[in-house]
């Protein structure tokens, strides 16, 4: 069966999102692998469910974390997208929003947190620090972007990113989840290096 997935986000047309090429490439790869009809339909159903209930891990090291709290609060309200159930334990979380600077001392801890999360799991790099080291790029104790230690799915630039940017980044992740194949791999082999730019 040919997979012709175009992930839908309510009220925002597909074309208005940036970086659709990455998604199209993902779909192409899926097609090369081929899918069974029954599994394909089940996949869609599961992905629909997964993408609307991504549970983030409460992980914040610095300034960006405060903006994350603002996104969780009443005005920006991430509950509208199904992300409001922030988990304190990595074992119950689907996505880790790395908000804040990651230092050398923190890096192994972050890596361990990531490894404790159950598959399928996603990483969003929030803010200049997590994307590339940001204002602290020249520091001797700051990791120059979390993609050095974790496979990142979505990058949200900004210092700190506005709450709207958080939401946009989360929607990009939803779109990515929607085109994925749940049975048999979740595109695991692809989970390395830079993939998507929000």
């Amino acid at each position, binding site marked *: 069966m040919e997979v012709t997935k175009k992930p839908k986000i309510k009220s925002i047309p597909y074309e208005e999102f940036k970086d659709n090429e990455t998604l199209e490439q993902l779909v192409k790869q899926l097609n090369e692998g081929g899918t069974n009809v029954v599994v394909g339909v089940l996949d869609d159903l599961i992905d629909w469910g997964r993408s609307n209930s991504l549970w983030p891990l409460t992980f914040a090291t610095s300034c960006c*974390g405060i903006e994350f*709290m603002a996104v969780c609060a009443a*005005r920006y309200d991430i509950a509208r997208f199904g992300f409001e159930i922030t988990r304190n334990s990595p074992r119950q979380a689907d996505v880790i929003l790395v908000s804040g*600077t990651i230092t050398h001392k923190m890096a*192994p801890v972050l890596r*361990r947190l990531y490894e404790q999360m159950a598959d399928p799991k996603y990483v969003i790099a929030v803010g200049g620090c997590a994307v590339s080291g940001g204002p*602290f790029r020249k520091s*001797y104790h700051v990791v120059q972007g979390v993609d050095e230690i974790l496979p990142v799915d979505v990058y949200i630039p900004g210092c700190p990113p506005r709450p709207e940017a958080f939401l946009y980044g989360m929607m990009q992740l939803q779109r990515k989840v929607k085109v994925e194949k749940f049975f048999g791999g979740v595109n695991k082999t692809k989970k390395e290096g830079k993939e998507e730019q929000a």
Partner: protein
Amino acid sequence: MNQETLHIASAELLAKMKQLKEVEKMDYLRSLTGMDWGTPEENDTQETMRGLGVVYHLESTSTGKRICVKTSTLDREHPHLPSVCHLWKGAELPEREVYDFFGIIFTGHPDMRRLFLREDWVGFPFRKDNNPEAENPLRMTNEETIDTTYIYKEEANGTLSRTERKLFEDDEYVINIGPQHPATHGVLRFRASLVGEEINKIDVHCGYIHRGIEKMNESLTYPQTLALTDRLDYLSAMQSRHALCMCIEQAMGVEVSDRVKVIRTIMDELQRIDSHILFFACLCQDMGATTAFLYGFRDREKILDILEETCGGRLIINYNTIGGVQADLHPNFVKRVKELIPYLRKNIQEYHDIFTGNIIAQQRLKGTGVLSREDAIAFGATGGTGRASGWACDVRKRLPYAAYDRVDFKEIVYTEGDCFARYMVRLDEIEQSLRIIEQLIDNIPEGSIQEKMKPIIRLPEGSWYTAVESSRGEFGVYLESRGDKSPYRLHYRSTGLPLVAVVDSLTRGAKIADLIAIGGTLDYIVPDIDR
């Protein structure tokens, strides 16, 4: 130089410091800064400081007298200085910081371990001849926690000997809290030894967000250094930046216009309200009151909107500049601030109605985590925490700056020193901040918002210390210049470091569940501790 400075040789340091503490009643150690003044050169005068050393800023809480003490040692192989932490408890963590960054060993210090960097870190990054990147690649191995520490002693012949000290005994029940734990408010790590449900001892581990800001400053130009202050304690972004701007202006001999002074004062107070509301929201959230969290954030957004309109940023504001402010007030500013004042007054009352009077909140906050006035001073725990223990430590009153000398406000002081007092101080301070804004908002003087500056800013040789009252205590800037366009050393007095230093003594004998209330009401921000 902006205050009396004493140069004391390291051999006489202990005796002199003891005299300062006991005879002159210098009971408050404001700041302790490590320094690398380099090796002696030919054209040095008597006055020139050389070697590895420490700068102490002391103040007497009874007479208000202030003094700055400098000491140093020329030995770069095994530098050591006597520890002063038996005189001022607040010296314990800063001395460990100096050991970590400069490798100066403090003899007599009960716990000479690194404070921020990993145990296996090579070298001392703040020494001018050290290149930390070269020897320290990113280590992805898990750090091992060591249960022992060393006490150093100087022998009669000048060599150092050390004795081992155990932090935790083998049969102690030690649990680990953090660094990724929602109640530590950031990436702080506690190791708590428990007896049943009671805390016996807490060992604090910092450094999980040590970003090396002070070291970076040494290669940035002055206007560039400003950007990093906002990211230290992001809930005092305005005030921290204000402190650095004031320090540089003082060094240059620039006086800002009245308009700038008033604008800065109003902005500082808006920031303070923002921070205190966030404090309320987070404390409630930690203690299980999610509704109160939402209420707090609802009101905080109103302040952020005002800040955003004028400054362009919500959280990291980047507003103060050397000699002025970035942009003039937005035409809506006055109107919106005036709308905010009655709105907040009404809502603060609401906070009291839903949370303060709540029986569970009262029982968890009242009587827990009592900090005595003596301890607050000895540790240098300023801000709301100090004032809740009866220590009137507000820099706005002690050393008025900007427009604080012309406004009428009350310094909130409670005497109980428990969690509830710390909570009430902050809520009451919101009202005082509103009063300050109210007095200023209608008469913001005309004038320029930016003094004329040279394109490249160089400071004369010398050293300066300035302090402001940030949202959580005295935030100080120690600046030393050698006449270049970047600072020789720029050190920040962290508001949070003394606050984590008191955690151990506050929690002794408390229940493990009280740690949440104690940590929440101390209200520290971890990136400001680790810098």
